């Protein structure tokens, strides 16, 4: 059992019994390998459901926007940054959330494990420190966990929660020698035609299911622009223009807000690397404003502030 599991259960028990919170949002064991299911525990006698493991990749800040009650929530580095953004955007008040910070070792990408197994089906995947034991019918493999992390986790520089009420374990060392934008620079180096082709190919198999959008904690608009129907804002077909419009607008709508938690990519049933859109904008915001989304609560994010000394003159 992961060391955090006991801590989470203990905290949940305490917070619920003392009526500090109405519910605890965390994860429970999944029904398929390498998946954990978000769960909301309301009674102290149910805290045994809560677990922690390397399959808790979904961003739980997604379950916080516009809540009326008081909840405790387990939060990885990225989840905590999205909580900060929720606070900045008035989606929830600080006194409504009790943050159980989970210093994170990165989350496992099951697609990478599938790819490695080349068609052999994993029936059980167990984590043991830095290794993953994967077994199925007639095989067992021990893999190096680090090599099977989600792409975003491999380059993550905020594994420790940036805001919390309790930490579930000692802080982990932050990765400092990572190049976050190698892939973005590769795309930037293409000519415009090459870039056009690159992004069109990327989304060619998109089925417009919107799992990427709905898995994102930033996408809380009461009516998304793609759902505006009176009049229709964006075409609903699988015509490349419509699909492209969706992806480009979604990316711009999360510019300066995206924490690169990877939930969108994790959720996509067609395995589309949708972070390729958001990462470029993340890089721009960092280079233009020196800003990383959701790292500090104080101050306003660059894209919702006006400064007279703005370096660009088009706005003056």
């Amino acid at each position, binding site marked *: 059992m992961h060391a955090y599991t006991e801590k989470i259960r203990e905290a949940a028990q305490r917070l619920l019994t003392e009526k500090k919170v109405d519910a605890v949002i965390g994860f*429970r*064991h*999944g*029904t*398929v390998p390498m*998946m*954990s*299911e*978000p*769960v*909301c525990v309301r009674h102290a006698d*149910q805290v*045994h*459901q809560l677990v922690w493991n390397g399959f808790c990749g*979904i961003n739980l800040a*997604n*379950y916080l926007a516009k809540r009326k009650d008081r909840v405790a929530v387990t939060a990885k580095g990225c989840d905590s940054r999205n909580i900060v953004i929720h606070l900045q955007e008035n989606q929830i008040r600080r006194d409504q959330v009790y943050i159980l910070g989970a210093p994170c070792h990165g989350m496992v990408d099951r*697609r990478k494990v*599938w*790819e490695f197994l080349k*068609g052999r*089906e994993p*029936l059980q995947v167990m984590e043991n420190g830095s290794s993953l034991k994967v077994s199925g*019918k007639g095989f067992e493999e021990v893999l190096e966990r680090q090599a099977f992390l989600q792409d975003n986790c491999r380059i993550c520089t905020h594994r420790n929660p940036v805001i919390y009420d309790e930490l579930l374990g000692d802080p982990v060392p932050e990765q400092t020698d990572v190049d976050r934008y190698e892939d973005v620079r590769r795309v930037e180096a293409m000519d415009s035609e090459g870039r056009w082709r690159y992004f069109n190919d990327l989304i060619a*198999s998109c*089925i*417009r*299911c*919107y*799992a990427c*959008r*709905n*898995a994102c904690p930033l996408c809380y608009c009461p009516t998304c622009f793609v*759902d505006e*129907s009176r009049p*229709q804002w964006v*075409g*609903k*077909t*699988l*015509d490349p223009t419509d699909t492209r419009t969706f992806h480009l607008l979604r990316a711009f709508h999360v510019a300066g807000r995206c924490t690169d938690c990877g*939930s969108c990519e*994790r*959720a996509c*049933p*067609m*395995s589309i690397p949708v972070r390729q859109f958001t990462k470029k904008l993340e890089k721009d915001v960092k280079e233009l404003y020196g800003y990383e989304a959701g790292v500090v609560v104080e101050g306003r994010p660059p894209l919702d502030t006006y400064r007279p000394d703005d370096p660009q003159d088009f706005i003056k």
Partner: protein
Amino acid sequence: MLKIFVPKDKMPRWIGRIMDGARVFAPVKEGDGYRFRLVTRPDKLDFSYQNTRLSPKELVHPPAEAMFSYSLKKGDPKAGILEEIPKALGTRVVMGIRPCDAKAFQLVDVNFVTDQYMDPWWQRRRQNTVLVGLGCHEPCSTCFCTSVGSGPFDAGALDVLMTDLPEGYLLEAVTEAGRALLADAPEGAPASDTVLTEARFLAQQAEKALPRLFMLDPLREKAMTALFQEAFWEEVQFACINCGTCTFLCPTCWCFDIQDEVHQQEGVRLRLWDSCMFPLFTLHGSGHNPRNQKLQRVRQRFMHKFKYYVDKYGNGPACVGCGRCVQYCPVNIDIRRVAAMMTASCVCPT
């Protein structure tokens, strides 16, 4: 009915001849999954897949189909008249479809072809499509076809059932259309008893490997809305993010939306996949939404599959146990678990 055996090296020749007379659709590796696509070279067929990511329902019920076009030009004698846009409705053979996915077509037939209404495109595509199925030797751990009235070698919705044997394929005709396909196969020879025994054995093994997870009969007896207020929906719905993954991947989800796209004086009327998971799905023109809450939407999906469909058509359930939604739901909402809750009204946490 006709049963023949075709050695592996002769399959491409047989399939090649089918391709001369019909469009052939088969699973093709695309990215990290498989998908049914038009295949024009017999050596491109790849039966080593377990299940396609998207179900083959897209072959009969395309995700976005332009149904009609119209003109709005003043003075145009055809202004305001819907004209059918020509569609490829000719003969097709779907090779290597899984028995569960074929069964799904049968389940959806009752919705698109009724006494009152007939969907012409669904009906014609179905009529002109021959299904050559591939039995599953090795069902995935997420498959549960035998719990919902089908099975890994269920030939009930197929025209031909193929069994993959070490040296070749056993091809068994199930319908007249299937028989016609096999009658014209000089590559094959009548199947020997050894081949038939070998195939039966494989089928039994596969069937035995699948667990029976729940019994739907007690649910059939209950009043239609008996489960409506059950407390377990609250638990089931929590994690759901209301995306369209489960319904878009599902072979039996048939819901669609109709939209007009108008550019200046020309318009097309489209039919697009829709999903009961989307809030817009039930939004009325008045602004009222009878399924405004996530809980209502999640409940609808499961109630439709296991209760409403069953009650309405005396058939079903409207799930074939393909396991796609189990595997790809981004938050691991597992229909097997929900069905177990619905049938036993059990709320025990796992």
